[in-house]
């Protein structure tokens, strides 16, 4: 193991620990007058499981960021496809090698980078589009709302994976950037429903009525008075949404229409092992475990945030 790689692992560990400790302390210090985010952290602080999930997500993000310095081998190099292919896990290759003699562990680290960044960017897009659409529907109400929501009903009646398969087959091989856009634009229906419901309740509140009485324009009312109040449900939905996008992207890459080889994503790595799953099981096992761990962590954090940010639970 080269010294620079040892240094990178140490740095990764130190950064992870430092960031998590900092978040924990911020939660521990939160008083009664703390804002919602602090208070959410404080709740996390008492919840052992949520804290473990937070550590896991921070660690995964660090690994993704530092992948090139952490990985022992190149993720795409095929050193010897006769002698070094399909090696079982060993000291030299923690997670074995695949059919092309590539190191599964190195690909897993790079895969974290690909899968997590795709999920993050796609969910940012989904959350933005969903929030704007839902806010518009809820704010204008009436017939506009009815039409906009019927479209959402229709979109939600088709399984997202089926919609994505059809789109990606129609459009052929798409680059990663286009994949992110497609994932983002098929993931906002749920968010928009949520935001609409919030906005419907918010727009009857005194602050909005007052702003309207003072002659504020629709755009300003939506941007200044309504949207800030829907941030926390959207954040909860986005956190749970990241978990969902990771699974969906993995599924598409597994089918060969998402992230294309040789670029590793956790999904297409699983596909690499499918044809010989009975004998070379490690190629499919480890990326799957990485997905389960990460997705579970995001789900736990999302659930925790929902409990923590719901103001109705404050008196409880």
């Amino acid at each position: 193991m080269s010294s620079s790689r040892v240094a990178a692992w140490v740095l990764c560990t130190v950064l992870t620990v430092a960031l998590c400790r900092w978040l924990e302390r911020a939660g521990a210090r939160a008083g009664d007058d703390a804002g919602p985010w602090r208070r959410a952290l404080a709740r996390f602080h008492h919840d052992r499981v949520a804290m473990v999930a937070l550590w896991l997500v921070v660690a995964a993000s660090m690994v993704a960021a530092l992948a090139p310095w952490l990985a022992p081998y190149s993720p795409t190099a095929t050193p010897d496809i006769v002698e070094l292919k399909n090696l079982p896990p060993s000291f030299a290759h923690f997670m074995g090698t695949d059919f092309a003699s590539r190191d599964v562990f190195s690909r897993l680290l790079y895969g974290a980078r690909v899968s997590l960044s795709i999920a993050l960017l796609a969910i940012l897009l989904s959350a933005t589009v969903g929030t704007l659409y839902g806010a518009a529907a809820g704010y204008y109400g009436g017939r506009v709302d009815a039409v906009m929501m019927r479209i959402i009903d229709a979109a939600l009646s088709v399984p997202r994976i089926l919609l994505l398969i059809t789109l990606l087959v129609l459009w052929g091989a798409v680059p990663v950037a286009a994949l992110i856009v497609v994932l983002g634009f098929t993931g906002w229906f749920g968010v928009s429903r949520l935001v609409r419901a919030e906005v419907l309740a918010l727009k009857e509140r005194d602050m909005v009525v007052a702003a309207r009485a003072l002659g504020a324009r629709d755009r300003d009312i939506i941007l200044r008075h309504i949207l800030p109040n829907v941030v926390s449900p959207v954040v909860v939905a986005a956190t749970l949404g990241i978990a969902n996008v990771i699974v969906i992207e993995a599924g598409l890459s597994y089918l060969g229409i998402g992230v294309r080889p040789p670029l590793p994503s956790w999904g297409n790595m699983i596909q690499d092992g499918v044809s010989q799953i009975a004998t070379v099981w490690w190629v499919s096992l480890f990326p799957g475990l990485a997905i389960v761990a990460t997705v579970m962590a995001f789900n736990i954090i999302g659930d925790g945030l929902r409990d923590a940010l719901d103001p109705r639970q404050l008196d409880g």
Partner: protein
Amino acid sequence: MIALLLRRLAQGVVIVWLVATLTFLLLHLAPGDPVSATLTDPLTPPAVREYWIHRLGLDLPLHQQYWHYLLSIAGGGFGFSFPHHRPVSAVLAEALPNTLLLMGVAIVLAFTIGIVLGVVQARRKGKPIDWGLSIGSLFFYSMPDFWLALMMLLVFAYWLRLFPASGMFDPVMYGLMGPWARAVDRLWHLVLPAATLALLVTAAVARFQRSALLEVARQDFARTARAKGLDERAVVWRHSLRNALLPVITLFGLALPALLGGSVFVESVFSWPGMGTLTVNAISTRDYQLLTAVVIVTSVLVVLGNLIADLLYAWADPRVRLEE
């Protein structure tokens, strides 16, 4: 009740129409067309291309194409599948019963086990068993469907050799079997795919049922039941569960898209000859016609499922019925 049914039915028709319109738009926004995607040989004579373009109506103005498209869908026709050399409706008619069988078994299993697990958890809230089951159901809830299917295949079909790895029946012996042996053989092939699909949904049902019960347990009638000296078992099973089952009916409608999406992967891993396997095979053959048909048929199934859920809800909850 009838009014409710009719209104829901009308909404369902609108939803399917919207889905059909969206897929039509997608088809025409996409680069290329079915003819050039199928006749990939550059030496194909132009006359052949023109023949197919004309036969498929691709030379008509867009609004006429749209109209023909809607008419054919309303009549249950979805065009012609080139890779299968058959009308799409014939291909789907063979696959749909297999998918429905798999989903039906998975739904029954998942909802029975999930509801029981949810009740167990809610009764022992905060105890180790609740904690363990919560983590367990989150574990399966977070799992990619195709990976779970692969692992089930690896463990139960290849390592333990308990169940067959693929198909609906034994390709060699089936023809020689008597009726009973055939039934057992089919059941044996159903176990792994149905269990995989059921595991994924059970996790969601258990999570949902647990929180629904805990919600109900706080309400006045539960307190009254406890106050009059009923033991906890009776309070939960006889009084709370009835009310906590209502949201689970909603979940039935909500779970359908996820279940149909999941069956795409589960079917293809276990080579179950249903719509999911068709979908995955249609990817490599670029079978547009089949894919759009699957999208529309799926939305019809989801709409019907939600209709059933609504009716069940109205049947179970007098408040909904009386509101009409």
